[in-house]
């Protein structure tokens, strides 16, 4: 579904990603892992088109997309839940959802969103920025779902969300994988959640992809080596 | 003290008032250039015969002196805009207030040499049929008093405006626009003859300063040197301020005011303080400017003038003190050059320059020479 090959990226002069390779199989959930600051978010932003790739290839659904603008990638089926929520603070909850919805030419809000996060319906007239942190996180996920993406990119989606909903999000990800053939690329620090939700993993270390495999292959040695300080 | 500290803490200067120019290449160049000017210009002006190609004419001295005043004004604006993030569209007002304070002194110096020969009243008052000097003109016959007022009037005015604005958390564009409204209101008010500042014509016809004739080349030279000194000292002062912890707080206010407040800093105090300081520097610039151009009138308050100051700073390089100073001098030099060379087309050139600078030198002209963020 998505494959990243030899991706390099810079912030100004500092070289952040070094020849990153990453394969995201279709209809699965792949978890990108690594310590703080290794470049996980950077990879996701580059895939989304919010950061330019210095070199390398990004192939989505068989087509090269690294030179397409972000909005085309979004409309082409990539949904993105950023780290730090990035809600439109002065738009109401409903408007936050509708912005995304209009770019797929629809006005209604998918029922899934309200099913999953009833609070978004209750608070649809409240300004996005007024929501509590966790509510904003739910809104961010809901907004991405409004795009009905084929590839959903989630950057630490459970951050700040109450435990029962976190569990639900995990279930939904699996359901989406299964029922709607949605592919998921996830960044998650919390190992239990990652193990439960994802079926593949890719590990980054200091800007390089260092290991990948099926989730059940993720052993303690890898965790020890790459995921603890 | 040389404990094995991380290299990082060394970024914070130990004593902000020592080694002021540490790591400040631009500042060193600026001060060096000023020092050279102070020495060389008088020699080339007075010591070299007018026929020599090295002679610097009185006209040029005068022009340079004024560029220095503009540089000082730009420096003052950069302090609030570049460091505290307060975009003032009304700094011309402080400049003009300082100018008026000086103008009032110069006016009183005329004495009975005015057109109507009144020993006390300036010509325009005689003409308006006023019987006596308004109270706010008292004391301006004394230089020390006027010199004090040059700083105090803009300072107090800035303080009151800032006190009102910062206390009630007026920020961003709101502050910019009301500062513009302030200078606009002052302009209209000073246009009124009833205000007692000479109305539209303002104050002019100056003759002496401290007993020296203003048309004397030596006096002009002295004013030039005074402007250069003022700019140099102001630079050092600003440099000290921005290197101090207070300077860092001010920059924190610029970037994240609520967060600064939550750390326990009274951000309004900081803003008020730096705003007032900047207003006083602008007033000083105005005071040095007026004797060199021989007129101060309400159009100095015009909002357009204040916008131009912002443009100087942006062209020079916002957030670098020397860049702002450079911008103030250079843009004005460009204007002098262009208005004489291509009188009909100069606005195209100037406008084009502004557009080009923003597009191609996002950090202003000094961005050309500066690779990394300044190390203040």
């Amino acid at each position, binding site marked *: 579904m998505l494959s990243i090959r030899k991706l390099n990226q810079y912030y100004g002069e500092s070289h952040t990603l070094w020849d990153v390779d990453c394969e995201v199989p279709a209809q699965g959930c792949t978890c990108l892992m690594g*310590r*703080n*600051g290794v470049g996980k978010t950077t990879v996701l932003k580059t895939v989304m088109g919010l950061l330019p790739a210095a070199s390398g290839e990004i192939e989505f659904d068989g087509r090269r997309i690294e030179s397409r603008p972000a909005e085309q990638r979004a409309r082409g089926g990539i949904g993105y839940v950023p*780290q*730090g929520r990035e809600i439109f603070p002065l738009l109401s909850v409903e408007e936050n959802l509708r912005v995304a919805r209009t770019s797929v030419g629809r006005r209604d809000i998918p029922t899934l969103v309200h099913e999953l996060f009833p*609070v978004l319906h209750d608070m649809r007239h*409240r300004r996005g920025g*007024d*929501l*509590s*942190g*966790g*509510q904003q996180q*739910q809104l961010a996920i809901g907004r991405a779902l409004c795009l009905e993406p084929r590839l959903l990119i989630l950057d*630490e989606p459970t*951050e*700040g*969300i*109450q*435990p*029962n909903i976190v*569990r*639900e999000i995990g279930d939904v990800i699996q359901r989406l994988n299964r029922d709607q053939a949605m592919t998921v690329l996830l960044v998650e*620090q*919390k*190992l*239990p959640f990652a193990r439960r939700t994802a079926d593949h993993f890719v590990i980054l270390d200091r800007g390089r992809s260092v290991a990948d495999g099926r989730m059940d292959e993720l052993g303690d040695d890898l965790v020890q080596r790459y*995921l*603890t*300080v | *003290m040389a*404990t094995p*500290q*991380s290299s*990082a*803490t060394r*970024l*914070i200067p*130990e004593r*902000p008032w020592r080694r002021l120019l540490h790591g400040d290449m631009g500042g060193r160049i600026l001060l060096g250039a000023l020092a050279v000017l102070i020495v060389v210009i008088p020699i080339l002006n007075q010591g070299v015969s007018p026929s020599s190609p090295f002679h610097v004419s009185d006209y040029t001295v005068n022009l340079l002196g004024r560029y220095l005043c503009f540089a000082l004004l730009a420096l003052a604006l950069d302090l609030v805009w570049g460091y505290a993030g307060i975009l003032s569209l009304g700094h011309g007002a402080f400049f003009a207030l300082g100018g008026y304070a000086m103008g009032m002194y110069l006016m009183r110096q005329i004495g009975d040499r005015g057109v109507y020969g009144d020993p006390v009243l300036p010509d325009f008052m005689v003409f308006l049929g006023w019987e006596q000097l308004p109270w706010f003109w008292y004391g301006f016959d004394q230089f020390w008093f006027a010199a004090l007022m040059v700083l105090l009037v803009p300072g107090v005015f800035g303080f009151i405006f800032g*006190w009102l604005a910062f*206390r009630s958390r007026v920020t961003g564009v709101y502050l910019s626009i009301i500062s513009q409204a302030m200078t606009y209101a002052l302009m209209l008010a000073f246009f009124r003859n009833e205000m007692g500042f000479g109305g539209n014509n303002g104050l002019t016809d100056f003759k002496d300063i401290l007993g020296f004739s203003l048309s004397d080349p030596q006096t002009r030279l002295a004013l030039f040197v005074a402007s250069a000194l003022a700019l140099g000292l102001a630079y050092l002062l600003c440099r000290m301020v921005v290197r*101090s*912890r*207070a300077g*860092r*707080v001010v*920059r*924190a206010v610029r*970037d*994240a005011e609520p*967060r*600064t*407040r*939550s*750390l*326990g800093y*009274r951000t*309004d*105090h900081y803003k008020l303080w730096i705003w007032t300081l900047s207003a006083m520097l602008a007033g000083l610039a105005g005071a040095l400017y007026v004797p060199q151009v021989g007129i101060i009138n309400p159009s100095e308050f015009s909002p357009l003038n204040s916008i131009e100051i912002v443009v100087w700073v942006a062209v020079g390089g916002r957030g670098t003190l020397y860049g702002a100073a450079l911008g103030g001098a250079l843009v004005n030099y460009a204007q002098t050059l262009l208005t004489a060379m291509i009188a009909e087309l100069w606005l195209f050139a100037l406008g084009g320059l502004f557009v080009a600078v923003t597009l191609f030198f996002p950090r202003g002209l000094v961005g050309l020479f500066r690779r990394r963020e300044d190390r203040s």
Partner: protein
Amino acid sequence: MSLLDRPREVMRRDRVFDFMMPDPLEAGRVDTRHGPILYLEDVTVSFDGFRALDALTLYIDVGELRCIIGPNGAGKSTMMDVITGRIRPDQGQAWLGQRLDLLRMQETDISRAGIGRKFQKPTVFPEHRVVENLELAMAGPRGVWSTLRQHLDGESRDRIDSVLTEIGLQSAGHSRAGQLSHGQKQWLEIGMLLMQNPQVLLVDEPVAGMTHQEMDRTGELLQRLAGRHSVVVVEHDMDFVRSIARTVTVLHQGSVLAEGSMDAVQADPRVVEVYLGE
């Protein structure tokens, strides 16, 4: 706007420049001889009719480590906003120790009186370097004049260095905070809180975005702080809460739903229903 309003506005207590006020707020002078350090009584906050806090009553003792949990939107962050003076409640009482009425104090004064906060969404000074962020947070006088003259002595430098090590950002000390990754910013926030050395620490979601091991480190850190300081932690990660919690308060719809030991709270069916899930 009547003419009278101007002078009235000028006289307003909560905004007046308090050059003249005596400053009882230096950290360490809070009177806690008689019981809790932080009292919230009957605090109600509403936004356009919606009650974010509904007659919330809460006491925090000196040296206590209190965990607060509760569903998204329960009002946990809003409670912190009230304590730090960001939001004025519609009714209720909030005191620091016996003498300081938080509701009559400005945000800055509350901070100087010894309440420090880590925000849920990390907020650092993006254009300042990491060390400068820490220096800004460092305890000490906050006035214009004193910061203007202040110099950084060796002791302060050591302190910055030790905090820098504590938060694992030694190598990033010179980078600008805006360039940090999300997790690194979280740590920097914690570091700033440490630099502030407040009596009461309000910590909103400290381990979001941290690995399991970092989480343990954070837990140890907070436990170390408790005792000398009072610590209030808001967190959704139950493993973390379990690892540090002594008393847990559950907030729901703006008021306390349950309070007690971790085990008791976890067993409470209401808490399970609204928060934990099966």
